[in-house]
């Protein structure tokens, strides 16, 4: 085992994918000469050349659409959108073009592209640079959506996303870029659609993804002090999501709390809760609860943003309520 930062794991996954397959290209604003706004593609232009690591103008719609056209024409493009908030500018390319192409053309060709983008708050970046919009994309048939919580899953899922024949929205959390974590020496690929259990427990299942996984783990540690053993499931993939693992965990603990940083209303948590209320109804010994952001834009002020983000205390309170 070695230690690696989350951002470095993404960089390594990009480099390894490009080395393994000459049809993988990177395209986005500042990905080439600057090495990425957050440094995810640092060194890749030097290694693979400007023909495969391509700086674009500030033209999100065209660069995303170009990724679709390139994917239909023999490449495996990895497009970067600097902040998830800016995916609002690429909705046609993703929703009407990438997501539909395979289906609407009768299976003639797949669209093997990845759109990498960071989401999330905690940096005081304000309402237009902090949003978690993953539910929008998870709602669109044809797109896959993943969101790793640590360096090992960032590496493994990005390799799987680039190798995948379908369009994948790969969501990174800005607040995790500097995070260090253990990664296996052989850096395994993690198949899309498989959750991981990060902490075993008998009393309650807490399902989370992305940075919220760490909120859940902190809450689980607090709850252990009260004699409550929480199982923490890292969803890793949001679409498709691993309902078997979630259901199996629920079947052991009989209580479920879902945590995410995105707005609670009409979110990913609502889908998980509804699904478990259906197929897991007989296993439930308490209400299924969600801990997520309130229905408001992400505020700038540190105090407001801290109150906005899901906290371990709120997760612990939800656990106590479902166990009551």
């Amino acid at each position, binding site marked *: 085992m070695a230690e690696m930062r989350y951002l470095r794991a993404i960089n390594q996954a990009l480099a390894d994918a490009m080395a393994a397959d000459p049809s993988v290209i990177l395209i986005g604003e500042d990905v080439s000469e600057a090495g990425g706004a957050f440094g995810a593609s640092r060194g890749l232009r030097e290694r693979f050349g400007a023909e495969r690591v391509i700086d674009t103008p500030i033209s999100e719609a065209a660069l995303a659409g*170009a990724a679709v056209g390139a994917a*239909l024409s023999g490449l495996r493009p990895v497009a970067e959108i600097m902040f998830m908030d800016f995916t609002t500018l690429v909705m046609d390319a993703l929703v009407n073009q990438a997501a539909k192409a395979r289906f609407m053309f009768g299976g003639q060709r797949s669209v093997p592209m990845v759109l990498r983008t960071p989401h999330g708050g905690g940096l005081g970046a304000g309402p237009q640079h902090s949003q978690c919009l993953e539910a929008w994309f998870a709602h669109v048939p044809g797109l896959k959506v993943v969101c790793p919580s640590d360096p090992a899953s960032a590496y493994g899922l990005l390799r799987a996303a680039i190798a995948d024949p379908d369009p994948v929205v790969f969501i990174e959390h800005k607040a995790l870029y500097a995070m260090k974590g253990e990664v296996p020496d052989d850096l395994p690929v993690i198949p899309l659609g498989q959750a991981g259990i990060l902490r075993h427990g008998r009393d309650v299942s807490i399902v989370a993804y992305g940075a919220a996984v760490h909120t859940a783990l902190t809450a689980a540690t607090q709850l252990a002090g009260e004699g409550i053993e929480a199982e923490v499931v890292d969803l890793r993939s949001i*679409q498709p999501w691993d309902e078997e693992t979630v259901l199996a965990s629920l079947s052991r603990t009989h209580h479920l709390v879902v945590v995410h940083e995105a707005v609670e209303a009409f979110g990913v948590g609502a889908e998980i809760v509804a699904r478990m209320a259906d197929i897991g109804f007989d296993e439930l010994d308490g209400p299924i609860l969600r801990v997520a952001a309130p229905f408001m834009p992400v505020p700038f002020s540190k105090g407001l943003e801290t109150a906005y983000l899901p906290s371990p205390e709120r997760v612990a309170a939800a656990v106590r309520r479902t166990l009551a």
Partner: protein
Amino acid sequence: MSEPTTPAAPSTGHNAAAELLALYRSLVLIRRCEERLSTMFADGEVPGFIHLSIGQEAVSAGVMAALTPQDTIASTHRGHGHAIAKGLSLDGFFAELLARDTGLCRGRGGSMHVADMSVGMLGANGIVGAGLSIALGSALAHRTLKNDAIAVAFFGDGALAEGLMHECLNMAALWKLPLLFVCENNGWGEFLPTSKQLSFSLEGLAAAYGIPHVAIDGNDVAVVAAHAARLVAEVRSEGPRILECQTTRVRGHFEGDAQKYRDPDELAALSERDPLGIAAGQLAAMGVGETALSDIATEIAARIEAAVAAARAAPAPLFEAAMADVYTGAGIGQPAMQGDA
């Protein structure tokens, strides 16, 4: 609409008559296919919306004559002509329009999404301007893969008002991509003349982005073919070019549109610029007899009727097979990605 500044057509050489006859065949094929669709649509046999390119066939026939099978095109909602001229399977085309399982898109796309990847036709598109960035990416792929192919983006004058147009012109010029922009300027964007939608001309826009632009009579297929051949060669070696074809939208925005917003005199005058009539006149002047034209008509009518008959006899699509194509490799009989317990 101002008169196009049409440069003289470059010489087509001593095989001019044979080349024009081949182009004429393409014109007739597109026209007869769409007339057949128009009738079947009126009879309720073609579902959904269809947008016919009657009057604009010379753009498709002329540009596609300059392309190789490896070259790719991205099309518009008015894309039948592009697809047919690029050489798509006629049986698959009619089967798709009739929503059959044997359709090119297995009955899932219909008129606005006809695609035939086997001939480099990357799809008609229901979103105005969306094909521009797909062609941009395809051109980028051709260059990265060093396969000597080019991409062609077809768009109408209505798409000039889309932001994506400007992003794509900039990137194509900046990167000198092997991309030919072909504007089918028919003067209309849905129900409003584009003169009431645009504060600029494509010529001016081309100058702003530094892309060589030529405006031609898009209804004279010999003119289109000659300029397309020259521009395609330039695109292959030098970078993007814009071909603006002044053409005529004879039918409404969509089939069934009574076009009450158009001046009856304007509509009546369109027949003077009919691409088939222009080409037939040129062929007659070259000494090509009526028999050659009627032979083409007979052959094409038979091909179309065979395709229609095959489509009518073809099975309807299966829901399970459609579900299996939302994601690659989902497979029939396997659980969907989500939703089935």
